[in-house]
């Protein structure tokens, strides 16, 4: 399901020959709203085709920004900054979707009815503070 979501954003297919999975991602930030959650994380997969704008600024890593809406439940635990986790996006049919991420220092689970993906941003390394579109 993750790859289907990525395919909707053409920018991903410019960056990667083969769309990466969600293994070894670095959790960077999260924001909850009334009924929605925004999550940002960095992909460990090297970029196959670096955009010139990114190359000029030393950006080598893809930061993804996902939004979950119509939240059913949300749980998270965090014991160190920028934790590395293996994640999965599951289609629950009429019950929506489930995003689950697990690592030695963090756990994250979101069950929601809708999920969306923004265009990725570039960063210099996983956990970098600076981004560019």
């Amino acid at each position, binding site marked *: 399901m993750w790859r289907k979501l990525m395919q909707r954003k053409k920018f991903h297919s410019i960056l990667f020959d083969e769309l990466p999975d969600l293994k070894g991602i670095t959790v960077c930030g999260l924001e*909850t*709203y009334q009924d929605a959650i925004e999550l940002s994380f960095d992909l460990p997969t090297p970029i196959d085709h670096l955009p010139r704008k990114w190359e000029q600024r030393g950006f080598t890593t893809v930061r993804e920004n996902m939004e979950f809406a119509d939240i059913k439940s949300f749980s998270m635990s965090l014991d160190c900054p920028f934790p590395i986790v293996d994640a999965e996006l599951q289609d629950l049919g009429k019950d929506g979707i489930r995003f689950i991420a697990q690592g030695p220092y963090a756990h994250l689970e979101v069950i929601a009815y809708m999920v969306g993906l923004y265009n990725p941003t570039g960063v210099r390394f996983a956990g970098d*503070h600076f981004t560019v579109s």
Partner: protein
Amino acid sequence: MWIDVFDSYGTFCKLYDAVPSLEKCSYKSVTVEEGGKRIRFWGRLYAPVDHPRPDWYTDEDGNVKVCFDFYGVKHFQTHIDVDASDSNTELLKVDGCVVFHGYGERRDFSIVAEGVTLKRG
């Protein structure tokens, strides 16, 4: 008292003749920043201010919007179900760390951090 746990709280105490109980605070959103080193809780204290000030936002009923800004976060855990009720919360200093703990029907959270500041929401 809970207000004494904050490193700083600006002019917050000037809003009230007596600082209200933390039980009157309702949390609307949370942001996890810097990979989890910094966590902010945004909420509203449902206790009309006695002395409004331009440096604090209040709603039409005089309730003040607040932000608890935790830094140096060592542990964070939360679980929220849809339609969860507001939580009962406590803010303490334990062994030099700030401990923020909340629990309610189908909702809980806890934070252990180096410190916290109170800001306008």
